[in-house]
C-alpha cells in the first residue's frame, strides 16, 4: 500500500528545483521518450504530486535511466522542465537513500 508522505510533499513544494504543477498529464512526453518506460516521466510526476515517496524510491532505476535529452520537453504543451525535475529527484534520492551528501 502506497503511503502519502507529507514531508516529501513539503520538501518538493519548498524547492525551486522541482516544478511540474503545470503538467496536465497528457502523456505526450512518455509517448515520445526514447527509453520507452511506462513510468518516465509522466507517471513519475503523478507520484511526486501525490506525495508517494515510497513509489518514487521504489522506481529509482527508472529515475536514473533518463537521458536528460529533453525530447519530451520539446513536445510538452505545458513547458514543464522535465529533465531538471528528474535531476531534482536524483538528488533527492542521493541524499535520502544513497546518503551521498547533506540530508
Amino acid at each position, binding site marked *: 500500500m502506497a503511503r502519502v508522505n507529507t514531508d516529501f510533499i513539503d520538501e518538493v513544494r519548498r524547492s525551486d528545483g522541482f516544478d511540474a504543477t503545470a503538467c496536465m498529464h497528457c502523456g505526450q512526453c512518455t509517448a515520445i521518450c*526514447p*527509453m520507452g518506460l511506462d513510468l518516465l516521466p509522466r507517471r513519475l510526476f503523478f507520484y511526486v504530486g501525490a506525495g508517494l515517496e515510497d513509489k518514487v524510491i521504489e522506481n*529509482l*532505476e527508472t529515475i*536514473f*535511466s*533518463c*537521458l*536528460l*535529452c*529533453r*525530447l519530451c*520537453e*520539446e513536445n510538452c504543451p505545458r513547458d514543464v522542465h522535465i529533465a531538471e525535475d528528474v*535531476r*531534482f*529527484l*536524483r*538528488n*533527492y*534520492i*542521493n541524499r535520502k*537513500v*544513497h*546518503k*551521498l*551528501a*547533506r540530508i
Partner: protein
Amino acid sequence: MPLPIAPLLGFLSDNLTKRRSVMPMSSRKTTRWAAGLDIPAGGETVLYTGLMYQIIPALTSSEKTMSLVQDSWVGQLLSFGRTVNRFVNLTSFMPPADRQEQKRYDQYLRNIVQLLRKAGVTEFGYLYGSELYTGALVRDLGVDDAFEQHARKVHKMLDRQGVRRVITVDPHTTDMLRNVYPKLVPGYNLEVKSYLEVLRESEARPKNRLESEAVIHDSCLYARYLDTVEQPRRLLEKAGVTARDPEFSGKMTFCCGGPVESLFPDKAGEIAGRRIKQLAEAGNDVVTMCPICLHNLEKAASGNGVSVRDISELLLQAYGG
C-alpha cells in the same frame, strides 16, 4: 541483484572532489594534443577543452570494467572499491586507453585549433595542465554537493588565470560554463561560445568545395540546451556539403544513448543502435559534434556500413586547405 548505483555514484563524485575529474588522467595525457601548435599559455580568451575529447578514449577501456558492474559480483565489490578509491586512485588500475584511439581524439582538438586560425581567430590561449573538467556527469547524476564544490574550484582557477572569454569544443562543457555555472557561482561572468558559433560568426572561407553529402546527428545539448542547430549546417553548406536530416533532427534530435552509459551500458547501446538505424536511412556518412555522440554512435555503427565522423574533420578538409 539491484544495480550498485550508490557506490558507483560515490566512486565518481569522490574522484571529482579528490582528483578533480571523474576519470583522473595525467596532465601529460590531457595536454599532449597541443604539442607543436604553439598555443600561448593562458590569456583573456582561451580555448577550453573541458577534457572531454581526452577522457572518451580512456572510457572505452574502462567500459569493460563498468559493464561488469552491471550484472556480476564486481558490483558488490564496488562498495568496497569506493572506500579504497578514496585513498588509492582505482582508475589507474583500469586497462590503459588504446593509443590509436587517443591519437584520433587528440586530432579533433588539433583540427579545431587549425579551423579557428584559418578563420582569422588567432588571439586565444590554452590553460594546459591547469584546465579542469566541468563536472557535468556528476551534476547529471544528481550529486549536487560534490558538483557545486567543484564548480567553485573551476571558477576560482579561471579567475586566477584572468580568463574573460572561452571558446569551447563540446556541448557538455558549453552548457556547464554558459548555462549552469552562472546560476551557481557568485561573481561568475564569462563569455562562452562554442567553436562552431565562433566559426559561423567569422569570415571563414572554404578553400575546397567538397561536393558531398553528410547526415547530421544533432547533439541533444547543442539542439535543445544551446540553440545551436543552424551553425553547423551553414558551415557545411558553405563548404559544398549537402546536409541531410534524419528522421529526428534539429530541435527534435534523438539521443545517442551516451548519458546512461555509466550506469546502464546495455540501454545506452540499445538507444545508439536505434539512432544509427535512423541515421542510416538518410545516408551512410554521418557527422557528429560531440565526443560522447561520436563514441556511442561509432560503436553502434561498426559493421553497419555507416561511417561516423567528427564535424571538425570534414570542416578542416574544406576550410583548411
